[in-house]
């Protein structure tokens, strides 16, 4: 419900510039990807993608700086704070649905499509296409091994993935400890706990990259390795990108803490990032369970 007055920002250049840079990125990415595998990779498109991405990054810095300045000037009422909270919550919900699409795809191929391909069920006539194909999960031998050579081995969940689970779960704890410290206004403790969170996130990303190298070089687990590789990389890949983004967000918050931007009652920027971090963490638990273990 509305309070007495409300801050409506003045005109802003950021949105139109952000649209323009998104456009440059999209045109560039489209042209660049289309030219992959041709004799000449499109330099112009690559340039457009790069420039667009750099512009967008610069614009986001400028835009957020603007918002932070307004917030520091006390222009945001409690009501505005609530709008930000709704905005961030629904954004995270949209991210949940993005991952839901890939989890849904995983469940569908595992429980329905692959068994049907192997001849199971009343509709299981598709095994006539690839006779002798046997349904199994993880799918080590695909119906057409020449086009999609299945993986030789899969990642052992009880080594790097288990370690990564421990890393990410403890990072959720450290970010919460930082939040408690912020509520008690203990700046040194916030800085330390946040730094620990960032470090845990970065180590997670490092191990994930290490795992990809092993998957590609030793296990034959690649994007081309049939549906197991496809679902494995799209789920862990997008999760890894989100952890990377979340780590950058934590870094920004860390700098802001050191500059004294937050006080015990007013620190939504901090909370938004910690919500995001917990979300990334929960997605990982789902991944560990359904992609690695089961």
């Amino acid at each position, binding site marked *: *419900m509305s309070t007495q007055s409300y801050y*409506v920002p003045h005109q802003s250049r950021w949105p139109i510039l952000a649209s323009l840079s998104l456009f440059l990125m999209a045109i560039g990415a489209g042209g660049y990807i289309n030219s992959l595998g041709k004799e000449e990779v499109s330099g112009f498109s690559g340039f457009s993608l790069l420039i667009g991405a750099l512009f967008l990054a610069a614009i986001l810095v400028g835009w957020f700086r603007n918002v932070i300045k307004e917030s520091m000037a006390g222009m945001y009422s409690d009501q505005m704070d609530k*709008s930000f909270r709704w905005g961030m919550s629904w954004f995270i919900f949209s991210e949940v649905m993005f991952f839901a699409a890939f989890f849904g795809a995983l469940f569908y191929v595992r429980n329905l499509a692959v068994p049907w391909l192997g001849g199971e069920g009343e509709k299981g006539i598709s095994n006539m296409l690839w006779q002798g194909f046997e349904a199994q999960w993880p799918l080590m031998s695909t119906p057409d091994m020449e086009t999609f050579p299945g993986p030789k081995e899969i990642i052992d969940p009880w080594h790097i993935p288990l370690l990564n689970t421990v890393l990410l779960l403890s990072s959720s704890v450290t970010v919460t400890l930082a939040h408690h410290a912020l509520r008690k206004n203990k700046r040194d403790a916030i800085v330390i706990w946040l730094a620990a969170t960032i470090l845990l996130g970065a180590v997670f990303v490092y191990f994930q990259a290490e795992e990809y190298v092993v998957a590609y070089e030793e296990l034959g687990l690649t994007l081309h390795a049939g549906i197991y590789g496809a679902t494995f990389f799209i789920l862990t890949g997008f999760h890894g990108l989100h952890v990377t983004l979340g780590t950058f967000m934590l870094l920004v918050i860390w700098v802001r803490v050191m500059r004294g931007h937050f006080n015990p009652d007013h620190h939504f920027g901090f909370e938004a990032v910690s919500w995001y971090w917990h979300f990334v963490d929960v997605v990982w638990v789902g991944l560990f369970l359904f992609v690695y273990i089961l």
Partner: protein
Amino acid sequence: MGTLEQTVETEEHHGPARGITRWLYTTNHKDIGTMYLWFSLIMFLLGGCMALSIRAELFQPGLQLMAPNFFNQMTTMHGLIMVFGAVMPAFVGLANWMVPLMIGAPDMALPRMNNWSFWILPFAFSMMVSTLFMEGGAPNFGWTFYAPLSTTYAPPSVTFFIFAVHMMGISSIMGAINIIATILNLRAPGMTMMKLPLFVWTWLITAFLLIAVMPVLAGVVTMMLMDIHFGTSFFNAAGGGDPVLFQHVFWFFGHPEVYIMILPAFGIVSQIIPTFARKKLFGYASMVYATASIAFLSFIVWAHHMFTVGMPLAGELFFMFSTMLIAVPTGVKVFNWVATMFRGSMTFETPMLFALAFVVLFTIGGFSGLMLAIAPADFQYHDTYFVVAHFHYVLVPGAVFSIMAGVYYWLPKWTGNMYHEGMGKLHFWLSFIGVNITFFPMHFVGLAGMPRRIPDYALQFADFNAVASVGAFIFGLSQLLLVYNVIQCIRVKRHTTAQVWEGAEGLEWTVPSPAPYHTFAQPPLVK
């Protein structure tokens, strides 16, 4: 930067900025709403021209005007432009204009993000339309872009199509977040949830649907991109994937998407009918619950679009019965609109005419939908013109008529001038006649087995196709009257009152016409 009160006060004396920067940099919900509506009108006319080229080719059997591949590009682009470029932005434009006015808010909750949501769209659609001029032509796999047609056999421009869809998705999600935050957080004191005008309620639920399914669309086009360019096999059975997986993920987005295009229409009609029947809306609470039920059901019916792919019997039955359930809340709505009119003192201005046509013609589309929901019968109808007739009845005299009703209803509030009633009625009658001549015969050729998306047809379908094409040109050309009426309403000073319509109720009618650049800087008290 001053204190809060000072900022608001100086704002009040500010009119809009001068020149082009007013539109480029604006944070004003009315400016952004206006831009959405003009953008949608341009896309409507562009998509309409594509529809007319389709109907021109189908005027008689045989290939006359275009090569089959270009025909396929036209059906694809027509669908994509109308869904993502015309109908959705029109509803977002109406929401931008009317939701803050209806709930007594000074603006949208996140005004800068609001600007971003809009300005992504012209860029996304420039890229999408530019595929027509690319090597290999525009996407030609239908607006539903089924794999493997859209992966293995797609033209190279599909990559740009994928990124255009990503941009539209970003725009829609941000727009929807903004609308939800506005409705939940910016209501005037006393405006409780169960006092919200129905247009606001339907948009709240629509925004939820958008946030839930646009990311799924992003997911499915991402999997396409990976299959096309990076060697994955999501939709390729040779690697253990499944082309049917594409259809499941797509329609998990697609079915809520069609309700995204109809729930705000329900809201608009629920505003207009009480005004011109001069009675309160019958069954307000049941309207709210019906909208919510429809939204819930939209998540568990998606596979009724794919009865013929070879699902297990249990799946066919589940999706058949859950689909038929939707008729219950929809029926509640139709009966409530009829009951609202019962013994009302009705008048028939242009918005009311469009709203009444909506109720009747949307119901026809609903009934043909019920026929399609019956799985065994759908095996006959699937991919025929009966399906085309069905969804055009719910989208053209459904969604599009409701948008036109809303435009005529609120145009005096936006411009401060009354449109020309006679011209409005002429536009309505020509549209009404044209729409029925176009789409009604499609039921017959569809039941007789004419397949959709084919540029040629068997001779026995010739007469009805000729009739449909004539109707399409009547409908298409009469939309020039809409353009004329809107421009005339803006330019000819026929001043109107704040109330505009005798029977109109709600906060939006308490502010002057035209609505000042900033409204409700001090929230009104709602009793």
